[in-house]
């Protein structure tokens, strides 16, 4: 009886496997997706975003996708087995591309459905630890790569405002320091880190009636000439608007440009109480209004790091490599096949 059951189960399994490994099943799953996507594209407009969101957390989207992947791998296995018997070069020529594409799709699924990420704002001296990580790291330095002196027209030109790509150095006690750039991301422990954004954090000390109320670095969205940001200090009723000011203006012919010292920038500070401007000053040292004094210190850079835990990323990268390698081989193999038919 048991042998009979096993044999029936096995036969059933074989039928299912043979169905899934058929090119028909693969084309049906691709065709179904194309039809679904086209329908969504016409009636919804943001179809890709909805598809990706659905893939992240909706079983009704995940199951057909997984079936498609299974069908794809089974088809690849079946056709590779056939190739292996006849011509091993054909295997490399025709199967590397679909293998690469399937790896990308697999990696994308793992990435979309299980990716964890966190955006962390930090300044030198801060400790960082994403919520899923055990290890804690200390931000040793933020090297913004911004040129020491720049013109306001630099941000519009090709040269940009950077000397080189920004870098952050982090370290853990007893371990060597690690440098993190913008791209490619650096893997530290089980987490990828890369620089997503950064800006300047000038130091401000505030005294009221000669009594120091506080001193700290204030991270502001200040990076290049023309940018401005504001901050408030509780419980004071003021809003401080901060922007860069040029140290001098250069004129060549009809072109005028402001030159900025980014190492020790000159700041325009406007103090607002409600809608009214209470005080305004261009300084790199201090300003006073009413019975308050605001001292400005040398700024540091703050950085926004993206920390990502993603198990799919290696599959995606290797899939892309296989695809890049497989594409020309596939084209060559098609051309050779056509030539052979001509003969």
């Amino acid at each position, binding site marked *: 009886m048991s042998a009979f059951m096993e044999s029936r189960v096995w036969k059933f399994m074989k039928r299912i496997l043979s169905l899934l490994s058929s*090119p*028909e099943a693969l*084309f*049906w799953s691709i*065709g179904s997706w*194309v*039809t679904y*996507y*086209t*329908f969504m*594209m*016409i*009636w919804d*407009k*943001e179809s*890709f*975003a909805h598809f*990706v969101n659905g893939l992240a957390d909706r079983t009704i989207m995940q199951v057909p996708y997984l079936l498609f992947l299974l069908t794809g791998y089974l088809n690849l296995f079946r056709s590779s087995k056939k190739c292996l018997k006849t011509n091993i070069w054909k295997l490399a020529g025709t199967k590397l591309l679909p293998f690469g594409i399937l790896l990308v799709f697999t*990696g*994308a699924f793992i*990435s*979309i459905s299980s*990716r964890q*990420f966190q*955006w962390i704002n930090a300044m030198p001296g801060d400790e960082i630890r994403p919520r899923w990580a055990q290890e804690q790291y200390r931000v040793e330095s933020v090297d913004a*790569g911004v040129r020491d002196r720049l013109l306001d027209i630099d941000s519009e030109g090709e040269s*940009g405002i*950077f000397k*080189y*790509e*920004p870098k952050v150095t982090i370290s853990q006690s007893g371990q060597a320091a690690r440098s993190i750039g*913008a*791209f*490619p*991301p650096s893997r530290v422990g089980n987490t*990828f880190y*890369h*620089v*997503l*954004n*950064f800006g300047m954090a000038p130091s401000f000390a505030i005294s009221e009636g000669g009594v120091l109320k506080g001193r700290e670095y204030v991270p502001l*969205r200040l990076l290049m000439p*023309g*940018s*401005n*940001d504001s901050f408030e200090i509780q419980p004071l009723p003021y809003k401080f608007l901060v*922007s860069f000011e040029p140290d001098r203006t250069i004129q060549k012919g009809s072109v005028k440009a402001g030159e900025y010292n980014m190492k020790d920038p000159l700041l325009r500070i406007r103090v607002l109480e409600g*809608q009214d401007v209470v005080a305004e000053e261009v300084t790199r040292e201090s300003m006073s209004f009413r019975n308050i004094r605001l001292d400005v210190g040398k700024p540091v850079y703050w950085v926004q790091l*993206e920390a*990502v835990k*993603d198990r*799919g*990323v290696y599959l*995606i*990268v290797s899939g892309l490599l296989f695809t890049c390698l497989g594409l020309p081989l596939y084209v060559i193999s*098609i051309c050779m*096949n*056509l030539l052979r*038919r001509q003969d």
Partner: protein
Amino acid sequence: MSSFVVYEAFFAGLKEGLKAGIIWYVLASLLHVKGMLRLQRAFIAGTLFSVIAAASFLFLNVTPEIREYIANSGEMSFALLLVASAAALLNSSGLRLFSLLDRVSGKAFLRNSAIFAASAIFFVPDISGTFIFIKDLSLLNERAYQTYASLAAGVSVSVLLISAMSRLLSRGLVSSFFELPQLLLFASMMKLTAGGTGGISEISLIPAVQRGLMKLSHDIIHQTFVMLMVPDHPLLKTTTWNFIGFFFGPNIASWETLLLFLLCPLMFIYYSLASPLPETAAAAGAERRRFVQSVLSDRRRKAVPVLLFVLLISASWFSQSGEKISAVKVPKAKPVVEDRGMVLIPVTDPTMDLKDGSLHKFVLSRSDKEIRIMVIMKPDGRISVCLDACEICPPDGYGLREDHVVCLYCNTPIPVVSLGEPGGCNPIPLAFAADDRFIRIAVDEIMKKRELINSSRSAEAAR
């Protein structure tokens, strides 16, 4: 003559008549050769049903939503035909995609129903759009009957032309180029090139298809960058941004989408030329050569309509890219000034009307810098106010191309309905207050949102 004929109505009638006539003739030729000419009745019934169903729009109040629904239905029917033709092409290349239907495919009822449904899917949106267009025209014309008479004249001329064509081209010759896949592909080609309707959408559906595919291509690239942790931020400009910009460029996107669109027809042509010949009892000699010759000749003939489709699409793709795609309207920004912390934009003045559905731009000068603001009324009647920049690209701004705005830097099409939603390639939305006379935007809001330009920060909020 010119005072009597309403040319738009005449050409609308001619176009629809020719479309129906050509498809009928090809279908009838194919059915005639296969000995199934009686099935053409189902096609005629489907077409008549479409005319009757579409005629209801002559008596209904056609709202903008209904117009959009009809335009979408036209695109949908094209997509269904194309997917069906792709499936049929693959099926005829040796795959057995419809083996489950083998047992029932011979039943006359099913065949009749399929032809009836296909013709209704093909014609209902087109004829509905045409009737709505004609109704609009008749309302503009002092003598409405002239419009309807011109439509009828157009249809009559198309009948004469089809009748002349049927005498010039024998059914045998026409049917030698067609099987079911080629017929479906031919129908989708007709739909693509002449499936739109004046007043509702473009005459050709190619721009709509291009937009959809361009958006898909852009979304895939963007998603890949997210997964590979490529920051879309100016801090990459010196090293990687140019490389990224290459993938976002309009030329690459245009080629990618064309390839995607033509993948199936190209596969069919490849299989027609390269698939092995079927086994024959005639092992050698003249008989075998004749057999091989007839198989190859038949395959080549059947590949001709597919090849024509590929050539036609390729030609129109790049002519559209060259003219229509670059036909982006970028309005000149009008200067606005700050007034007690607010920017006031009049809803109407002698030179403009913000509710005309067109894109309007304004520029505010602050500290020697210019900040551009764009205003547009969405199809749902709500006004959208945004900065003329997004959080990803350098702030080149947006232009209006037909019914969507397009980023001038990365060429991403953005549906107007999605304006006001933050994030990605959408323009950065601004909070504003509006009454009948003015749109009011706080300068603080503008300055605050300006910091988002080219910063990528939206994604933080979006996630």
